[in-house]
């Protein structure tokens, strides 16, 4: 039955005949999310990371936590029922990235090229 098992790639915690997950997957997600939240607060308030790298560290922790939420709470997975959801998410992420990074880039560039304000 190797070819049948090929299509059993499901989201963590989704049981055979259950449309959603089980208690264990929600609890694992909660535990991971709490750990990542505490890590974010600790990193921002201490010099555990090299200080100029702290914003990047916080962004990495935020993305990790968003990933945990998507997989354990929203049950986004690699299964066949999720193909369209993943494609839509990829497009959404592209737009979000363009809007945020594009705005920050353009405005930083404008500030850089701004003439000294007369006092």
């Amino acid at each position, binding site marked *: 039955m190797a070819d049948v098992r090929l299509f059993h790639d499901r989201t963590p915690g989704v049981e055979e005949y259950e449309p*959603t997950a089980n208690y264990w997957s929600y609890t694992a997600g909660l535990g991971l999310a709490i750990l990542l939240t505490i890590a*974010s607060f600790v990193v*921002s308030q201490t010099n555990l990371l090299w200080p100029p790298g702290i914003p990047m560290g916080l962004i990495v922790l935020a993305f990790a936590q968003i990933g945990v939420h998507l997989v354990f709470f929203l049950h986004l997975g690699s299964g066949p*029922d*999720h193909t369209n959801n993943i494609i*839509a998410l990829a497009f959404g992420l592209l737009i*979000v990235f363009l809007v945020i990074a594009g705005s*920050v880039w353009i*405005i930083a560039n404008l500030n850089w090229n701004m003439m000294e304000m007369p006092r």
Partner: protein
Amino acid sequence: MSITTIADFVPTELARGRGGGGPAPTRTVVAYGFWIFLLSDFVLFSGLFAAYAVLSGNTAGGPTGSELFNLRNVFIETMCLLLSSYTAGLGALSAERRQPGSFLIFSAFTFVLGAAFLVIEAREFARMAAEGAGPSRSAFLSAFFTLVGTHGVHVTSGLVFLVYMVAQVVAKGLRPHVLRRLLCFSLFWHALDIIWVGVFTLVYLMGAR
């Protein structure tokens, strides 16, 4: 020789989403449609995040983030929202398993934790406004109140959605179409938590340094 597709090798039931097995179940289609709505909501928030990122330094001589933000409160707010997401998930699970009693209990926890988040946020806003740090003080504060306030409005509408769903479960029972609406509610509630991760990282943790 005929062209062989993947559907020739697997039972049609298992090839769903890969072109075999006919149309997807209603549940999958409903979740997909709601997911598109949530992604458009993320795009809305991306504009507010971009505005905040651009304006966060423009304090016009007024208070800065590190003077205003109370990280202890933010941590409590984060935990409230995270735990309410957890209880909402368990509530959805109870509903799937046709256990209306535990669904109602988990929904009550979800409501109380969500309301606690809103109360803490409202008190924070009121304190800032009383200190003269209202939305009209500086571009930074305008962007702050717009971004965090829009998230708060979403949490409020999520609570209304939750009350509406509890009323439907009580009045109609756990019928398939009620279960699909419940699925939409839990997607909405978890998505709010994802946006909050962005808010506490960008606004509070980076702003309070």
